[in-house]
């Protein structure tokens, strides 16, 4: 196997941090929260302390801290995207995954380029602007194929719409292959380690290329060596102790910061959900309760203040509502994870899916609820198309960035959605929300330009941004 790679997930050290911080007192917790609110990435011992908080009042204090941090850094924007499964062929045999090679219950399918176009048109016609393309690990889904699918997605136009940002969730590649994918103009390249616990990893990944823990662990190092500056990490909660996995995510973040000067662009924290022909998903070995899930989301928020957090539609609606407040910056909505299922009424879609979803509401319904709850749904991709991406902790680093760029751009992309795709009820709720948001802008220059841009949108122009 690939030699010379050092495992930067120090199991003993993590366990000792978790052991030594078992009885956190409120004073210490307060000090840690303050360090996070001062926009510092927390240290392992601090994160272990937060993870060990059990008393309801202490956890509530951590929730308050996470909510405050979210308000301070991200404001009330929620970025929306949809997953698009390109193919579910896979040569791995991950015990918890519906796509595993030994699963005879799953129907294998890979979208043709024509089918991909039809899927993208279906997504665009619902108002989506940002996608994550998902691939199994298979020789067919090599770098050339991935790049071709990305280019295809970008080439599709439907009415006033188009996809403006394509992220990738695929197998780890070698540096030269990442370069090919990068050239297609991707956003984030996402690889989940699934579990950071090497022994559990071995049990869960018995066969296939994914069984190599270190090759996967260094997958995003190679992406960054290839010049991909947005990478996403994640763990699948339920395979091993949730506290350990949060520490693993932190160690991974620290490793990327130390090596490349910047941490991951996003962190994902899915919980195992039932998958066809996959018994372990009904009884995950380390099931995470809703309370612990909320707690871990709040702790991640405080641990890495400048990193985007992605909450997926795997989670049930009520959990999504609560967790949104605790620091989530992106969610998928109107998702369909069967291969080819956005454009066809496929009664067997579940047989082509990796797992099942907890929130299957259409995008329009999710957007209406977000607007009614005081959020600004955003499809913004401006930084990414203005060469501001390399400064991707700008939101964090420059005071006022969110208010002066992200908030107006969220308003503009939301207004586009309301003009082109919203149902009458959503449009009504959305326009009310937009007006409130505009009223809250105190910079007259920005307000003036924003109002001018909105007028141009109403007159048929699209894709205007700060």
């Amino acid at each position, binding site marked *: 196997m690939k030699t010379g790679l050092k495992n930067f997930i120090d199991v003993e050290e993590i366990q000792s941090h978790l052991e030594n911080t078992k009885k956190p007192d409120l004073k210490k917790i307060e000090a840690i929260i303050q360090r996070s609110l001062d926009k510092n990435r927390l240290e392992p011992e601090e994160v272990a302390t937060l993870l060990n908080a059990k008393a309801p009042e202490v956890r509530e204090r951590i929730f308050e801290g996470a909510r405050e941090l979210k308000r301070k850094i991200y404001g009330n924007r929620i970025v929306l995207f949809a997953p698009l499964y390109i193919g579910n062929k896979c040569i791995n045999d991950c015990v918890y995954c519906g796509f595993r090679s030994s699963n005879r219950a799953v129907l294998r399918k890979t979208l043709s380029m024509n089918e991909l176009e039809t899927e993208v048109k279906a997504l665009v016609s619902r108002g989506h602007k940002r996608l994550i393309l998902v691939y199994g690990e298979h020789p067919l889904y090599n770098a050339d194929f991935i790049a071709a699918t990305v280019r295809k997605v970008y080439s599709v136009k439907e009415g006033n719409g188009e996809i403006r940002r394509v992220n990738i969730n695929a197998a780890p590649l070698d540096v030269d292959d990442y370069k090919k994918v990068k050239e297609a*103009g991707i956003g984030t390249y996402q690889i989940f380690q699934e579990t950071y616990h090497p022994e559990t990893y071995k049990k869960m990944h018995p066969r296939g290329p994914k069984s190599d823990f270190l090759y996967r662990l260094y997958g995003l190092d190679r992406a960054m060596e290839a010049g991909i500056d947005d990478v996403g990490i994640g763990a699948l909660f339920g395979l091993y102790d949730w506290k350990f996995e949060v520490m693993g995510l932190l160690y991974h973040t620290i490793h990327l910061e130390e090596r490349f000067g910047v941490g991951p662009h996003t962190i994902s924290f899915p919980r195992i959900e039932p998958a066809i022909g996959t018994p372990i998903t009904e009884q995950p070995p380390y099931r995470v309760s809703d309370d612990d899930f909320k707690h871990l989301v709040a702790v991640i928020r405080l641990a890495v203040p400048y990193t985007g957090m992605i909450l997926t539609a795997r989670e049930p609606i009520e959990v999504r509502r609560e967790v949104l407040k605790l620091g989530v910056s992106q969610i998928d909505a109107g998702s369909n994870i069967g291969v080819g299922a956005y454009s066809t009424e496929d009664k067997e879609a579940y047989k082509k899916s990796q797992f099942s979803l907890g929130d299957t509401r259409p995008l329009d319904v999710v957007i209406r609820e977000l607007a009614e709850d005081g959020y600004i749904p955003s499809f913004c991709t401006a930084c990414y198309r203005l060469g501001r991406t390399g400064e991707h902790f700008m939101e964090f680093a420059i005071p006022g960035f969110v208010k002066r760029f992200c908030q107006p751009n969220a308003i503009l992309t939301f207004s586009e959605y309301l003009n082109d795709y919203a149902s009458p009820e959503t449009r009504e709720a959305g326009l009310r929300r937009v007006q409130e948001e505009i009223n809250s802008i105190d910079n007259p220059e920005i307000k003036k330009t924003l109002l001018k841009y909105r007028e141009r949108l109403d007159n048929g122009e699209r894709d205007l941004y*700060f």
Partner: protein
Amino acid sequence: MEKEIFISKVLELLREYSKEGCKLWLAESHGRRWAYIGGYGDEHFLPPERIVTVGKFAIFGEMVKEKNKKNLIKDIRSLLEESSG
């Protein structure tokens, strides 16, 4: 001209021009994406404009005076001529 030399010379130009109160940055395109390479000047939080595109590179700016834009484009062209000459 080697890509690295071109980039460093452009960045040097941007540093000089940014002294006049504007923000300027260089980006490289990958498909539809423009990836930041480097830049100078204070953020003005105004809609930026693409001042010039040279192959896969573009210079974006905020609050750049018309006269400076013209001069910057002229300087970039000279850099390119220098490289092809």
